[in-house]
């Protein structure tokens, strides 16, 4: 709508014209964004005010779905699980990614290129395929872990209710460490190498270089990585959705994670309104957490 109007003004029509030009540039993205994000979110908000019944159809129930949600132990069970998962998985993955990036950047590795590519490859593997592979890797009976158990005489089982979350962590870490590593590595490579040489002349050892130059250089990208990792782990869905078909009694329930719960409510439970309420509350929680983490990073970037 805005674009044809702006197009009639020459580019140099002063401040007002420039203002509209900006809108014209953002319009294609903005319009599609409305269609794909904003309208569906409002629609979800609308749906969340109704209760769907198999018999009797839709009834307007106001905020009843939200009230019910706040008393729903299954929902909070999932939220708690996702929080504790995030608290462990994100630091482990990001620290691993940082250590690997530092190792690659240290130039002390044989086959740096091979390592970098290998560690990054899992990012390119679709979840469907990766679950297939990990099902075998962690298989107790015929899988690699089963053979390991036989060889060592151990009895490790990665898919009991108390260990399943760890296994999911192993799978998620596998998929995304390389991606984060590559970002950190790219940042490190952008640090002018003269800085290192200057530090070396000043008598700093490598550990000090890491501490004083490299880690501070990573700070900004770390904030971004943390935010995206948190968002990612909060939305964890594919792994717990696919795993139960491969392993028995892993402890994965229909409400294992909030996303899985929403999906099951909407699609097996015919409770779309309730599912919509759940998804919106979850989105609000995620945004709140992400915002708490990113508030400084975002401000800096904006003022920049």
């Amino acid at each position, binding site marked *: 709508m805005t*674009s*044809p109007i*702006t*197009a*009639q003004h020459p580019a140099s029509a002063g401040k007002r014209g420039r203002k509209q*030009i900006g809108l*014209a540039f953002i*319009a*294609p993205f903005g*319009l*599609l964004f409305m269609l794909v994000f904003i309208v569906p979110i409002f629609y979800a908000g609308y749906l969340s005010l109704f209760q769907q*019944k*198999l*018999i*009797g159809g839709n009834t307007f129930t106001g905020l009843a779905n939200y009230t019910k949600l706040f008393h729903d132990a299954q929902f909070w069970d999932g939220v708690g699980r996702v929080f504790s998962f995030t608290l462990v998985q994100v630091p482990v993955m990001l620290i691993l990614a940082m250590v690997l990036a530092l190792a690659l950047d240290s130039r002390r590795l044989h086959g740096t290129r091979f390592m970098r590519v290998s560690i990054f490859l899992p990012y390119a593997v679709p979840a469907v395929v990766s679950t297939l592979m990990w*099902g*075998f890797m962690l*298989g*107790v*009976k*015929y899988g690699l872990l089963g053979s390991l158990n036989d060889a060592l005489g151990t009895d490790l089982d990665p898919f*009991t*209710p108390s260990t399943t979350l760890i296994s999911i962590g192993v799978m998620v870490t596998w998929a995304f460490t390389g991606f984060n590593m590559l970002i950190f590595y790219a940042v490190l490579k952008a640090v002018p190498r003269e800085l290192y040489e200057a530090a070396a002349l000043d008598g700093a050892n490598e550990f000090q270089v890491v501490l004083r130059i490299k880690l501070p250089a990573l700070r900004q990208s770390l904030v971004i990585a943390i935010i995206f990792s948190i968002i990612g782990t909060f939305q964890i869905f594919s792994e717990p959705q696919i795993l*139960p*078909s*491969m*392993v*028995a*009694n*892993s*402890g*994965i*329930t*229909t*409400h294992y994670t909030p996303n899985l719960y929403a999906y*099951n409510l909407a*699609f*097996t*439970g*015919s409770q779309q309104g309730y599912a919509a309420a759940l998804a919106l509350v979850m989105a609000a929680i995620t945004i709140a957490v992400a915002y708490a983490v990113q508030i400084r990073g975002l401000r800096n970037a904006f003022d920049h």
Partner: protein
Amino acid sequence: MRLRKQAKLLSAALGLTLVLGACSSGSSDSGDKQVKLTVWSWDDTVAKAVPGFEAANPNIKVKVVNAGSSFDEYTALDNAIQAGSGVPDLAMFEYFAVPYFAIPGKLDNLGEFGVDKLKKDYVDAAWNDVTVDGKVYALPSDYGPSVMFYNQATLKKAGLKEAPATWDEYYQDAKKVRALGGDHYIAQDTGDLFFLLSLIWQAGGRPFKVNGTKVHIDFSEPGTTKAVAFWQKMLDEHLLNTKVTAWSDDWNRTLNDGTLASQIMGGWLTASLPQRAPKAAGDFRVALMPQWQKGDKVGAENGGSGFGIPAAAPHKDAAFKFLEYFTHGGGLSPRVDAGAFVPNTSVLASTDSQSKVNKYFGDQKVGPVLAEASKSVARGWQFPPFFEWARSTYGDLVSKYYTTGKGSLAGILEEWKQRMIKYGNEQGFEVD
């Protein structure tokens, strides 16, 4: 200038997307004479009936689409119905899903098409599966009489000459198989609801009584308690492999290496067992389910499905024509040739099915066993109209029991009942 061009281009592109989209979804209604049917099926054999049907009905074109298996398809159908577009003319339903779609009026009553006269051509229990409140909502297309697949070589190793004919023998044999050590078990179970229900079904329990939107749930009938107590004993004495879940890769491998001595499952497993356990070729045999009384012949179902016409389907007459053709008429034989196991009495009694030997099953005549099992399925079983939800909830409950060992199957069933009552009433049913 350029900006305007660009803006025009973008809006044109956006407009085009909508127009194109509208075209491709609207095309199904076009044409007065030519009818284009869309059939949702995850059963490959349905497509085998299409060429014959199209030859006989030149004005109908049939497109068979795999819109996902089971749950995925029901979701898609629900979505399509809600959205009011993309509803197929025919869709596949497992028997337990028929009430879910029939009771809220999402499926057409096939009585309008005069299906009642077809009743005699199907196994009784299969007809019962597609009947809700006395009305028929689907035609049975494949069948799952519960039978026992057993590995003769493994039983022999355990010192057993014959397959167990009663549950008592089954229990004794289980101990002997277990005595082989290692991973040898008579069966696996990781909380398979359909198996437990088939056990209850055979023992005479009828836990769900459905009458319109009224559902009564009761796990305290003698038949139910007998079956549950028996399986509880098997679990308590660690006679079952609770680590290997059906349909997983591990399961294929236990079937393949002979450590799993038997598997009680729908008869349709006959077709895919050779792929799952190629190494065990010649070792497996098929028998009726073990009986509660020696000499009885009482069976149950595990799986099976039919096809119905959604109330929102665009071409109902043509849809029924094809439905009748591939489940009852000329389309049956190409499907059977392709491996479909159907509950049509004519097929079960055919000389071909009665006399063909199956090489994989050590040249056993498998057909007569399956026909016998089909005919002996006990009557009167019903599924509640919210079974899809109920079974996923059962999964939540039972997995806790199988992993911690705390509680009992009977306790799980009671808890399950309470959840169903709560959910069912919330959904507008009257459940007690």
